């Protein structure tokens, strides 16, 4: 398959050639949880720590200047990567969770007098049943603080958003709609335009949780037309400890700071403060400097490989995986069974050929201990979605640019073995 030389890419990721105890090769099918890191990112972080490290913004010496430049340079790279009209719209956070909390905190906040963020009894927040807990709990908090009502889109049996009640659900009372760009369980890629169009009609703001989209396909915020997107570094070959909130400049200007501390201020008196403009307004304290730099290099790496090529490779792998898994009797995919509007995250339940349910924890344990196959088992931080499907847990294989069809074949063999153990 052309466009992407997977064997060359695999050589960039040192962990992919390690052996697990007992001589098992590692088969890493858990990138939706967290991705592995290429040597380029590891080396850049090591180099910065060894030779250039200092605090950013406030250290007025040679190292301070180098660190600040590298940190701000990472912001430029990320802004370019997502097509942000301005670098100042890129806010570094700890992860996607913090990015979403930051936005949710701006709603119904007495410090924020902007009408668009006013939230109180009678107002509504709309999310969906397929969200990660990170895009549920912050909105529960916002509703509890303000007295607003939390509502959500349902999910169809196929694992798509049920938009049949869109016009009723998103209405004059709706202040914000927050939903996943791509589901971390179902693999579903949600269609944004109908929801966005309706939100615009009623004057609601729109946040996309792009944690599972930005790593896997070209994302251009100007093209998307939404107000905010959140994503997280560790799922896109970058380090953990760094995430991104992108927001439209004029909204960020209207929003109150989330955390208070050093570097987010303009001036401080004993009884009050004024604040720096975005992005620094939202980056209180010493930021994850080396992690931001690492994410900048991760973005360079993904750009070099090419996001369209990554998308195409994962598309082919996903088609292969869906086909191969569908041949296992007793395996039920939870989510779309075709590759249309779907990413490379495949969750499923498994029975023995005799119809006996095999618990995902048992599936994962045997795949890991016998074959070195790393999958995720459980509810994947999307408990309401699992309740919707009436199952406590699933097994999830999630693919990325470095995975191969051989690894999918190994998964299939592993699952047959699991069935034998419980058969």
């Amino acid at each position, binding site marked *: 398959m052309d466009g992407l030389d997977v064997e060359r890419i695999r050589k960039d990721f040192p962990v992919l050639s390690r052996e697990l105890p007992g001589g098992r090769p590692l088969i890493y099918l858990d990138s939706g949880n967290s991705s592995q890191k290429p040597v380029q990112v590891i080396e850049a972080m090591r180099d910065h720590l060894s030779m250039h490290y200092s605090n950013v913004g406030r250290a007025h010496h040679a190292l301070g200047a180098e660190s600040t430049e590298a940190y701000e340079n990472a912001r430029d790279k990320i802004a370019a990567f997502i097509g942000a009209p301005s670098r100042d719209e890129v806010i570094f956070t700890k992860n996607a969770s913090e990015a979403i909390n930051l936005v949710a905190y701006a709603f119904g906040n007495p410090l924020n007098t902007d009408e668009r963020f006013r939230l109180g009894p009678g107002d509504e927040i709309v999310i969906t049943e397929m969200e990660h807990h990170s895009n549920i709990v912050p909105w529960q908090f916002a509703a509890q603080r303000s007295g607003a009502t939390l509502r959500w889109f349902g999910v169809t049996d196929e694992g798509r958003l049920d938009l049949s009640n869109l016009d009723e659900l998103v209405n004059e009372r709706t202040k914000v709609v927050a939903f996943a760009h791509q589901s971390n369980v179902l693999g579903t890629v949600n269609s944004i335009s109908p929801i966005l169009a309706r939100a615009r009609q009623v004057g609601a703001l729109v946040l996309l949780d792009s944690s599972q989209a930005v790593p896997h396909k070209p994302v251009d915020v100007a093209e998307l037309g939404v107000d905010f997107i959140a994503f997280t570094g560790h799922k896109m070959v970058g380090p953990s400890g760094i995430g991104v909130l992108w927001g439209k400049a004029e909204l960020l200007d209207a929003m109150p700071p989330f955390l208070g501390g050093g570097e987010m201020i303009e001036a401080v008196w004993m009884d009050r403060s004024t604040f720096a403009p975005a992005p620094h307004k939202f980056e209180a304290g010493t930021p994850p400097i080396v992690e931001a730099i690492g994410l900048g290099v991760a973005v360079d790496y993904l750009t070099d490989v090419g996001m369209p090529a990554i998308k195409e490779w994962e598309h082919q792998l996903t088609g292969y995986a869906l086909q191969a898994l569908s041949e296992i009797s007793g395996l039920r995919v939870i989510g779309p069974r075709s590759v249309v509007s779907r990413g490379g995250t495949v969750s499923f339940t498994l029975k023995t050929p005799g119809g006996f349910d095999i618990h995902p*924890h048992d599936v994962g344990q045997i795949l890991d*201990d016998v074959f070195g196959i790393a999958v995720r088992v459980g509810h994947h931080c999307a408990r309401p979605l699992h309740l919707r499907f009436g199952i*406590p847990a699933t097994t999830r294989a999630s693919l990325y640019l470095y995975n191969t069809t051989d690894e999918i074949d190994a998964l299939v063999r592993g699952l047959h073995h699991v069935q034998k153990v419980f058969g």
Partner: protein
Amino acid sequence: MIAESMYQELILEHYKHPQGRGLREPYDAEVHHVNPTCGDEITLRVKVESGKVADVSYEGQGCSISQAAASVLHELAAGSTVVDSLAVVDEFTRLMQGRGTVQADEEVLGDAVAFAGVAKFPARVKCALLAWMAYKDAVVRSS
């Protein structure tokens, strides 16, 4: 083939054919325990009559280890005395928390020795102990 040693035939047998499953009347105490890391749950009832465990009944959901452990617990505790059954719970707990270094007392544990391999998997120890901790809790509450 590390995990294979954890999935002993006896454990799989209990998982597929659980003994004493289902919630029954009468009972003195009912408890509900959850393992929040994996979502395994058990509801367990005990009926005690003059120092003897008249019944242990339960309903739950979870992995093979947690469900088989409940079944084995039922076999060992029901019909035994409260004192003896708590001695088994203590020995089982010692085995599970021993990180694979504890020699099990087969005399005391009976079928429960099949879980010895689980002790090497810290993430699964809680699964094995779920029903047993629920039982201990229920016995305390029944008195």
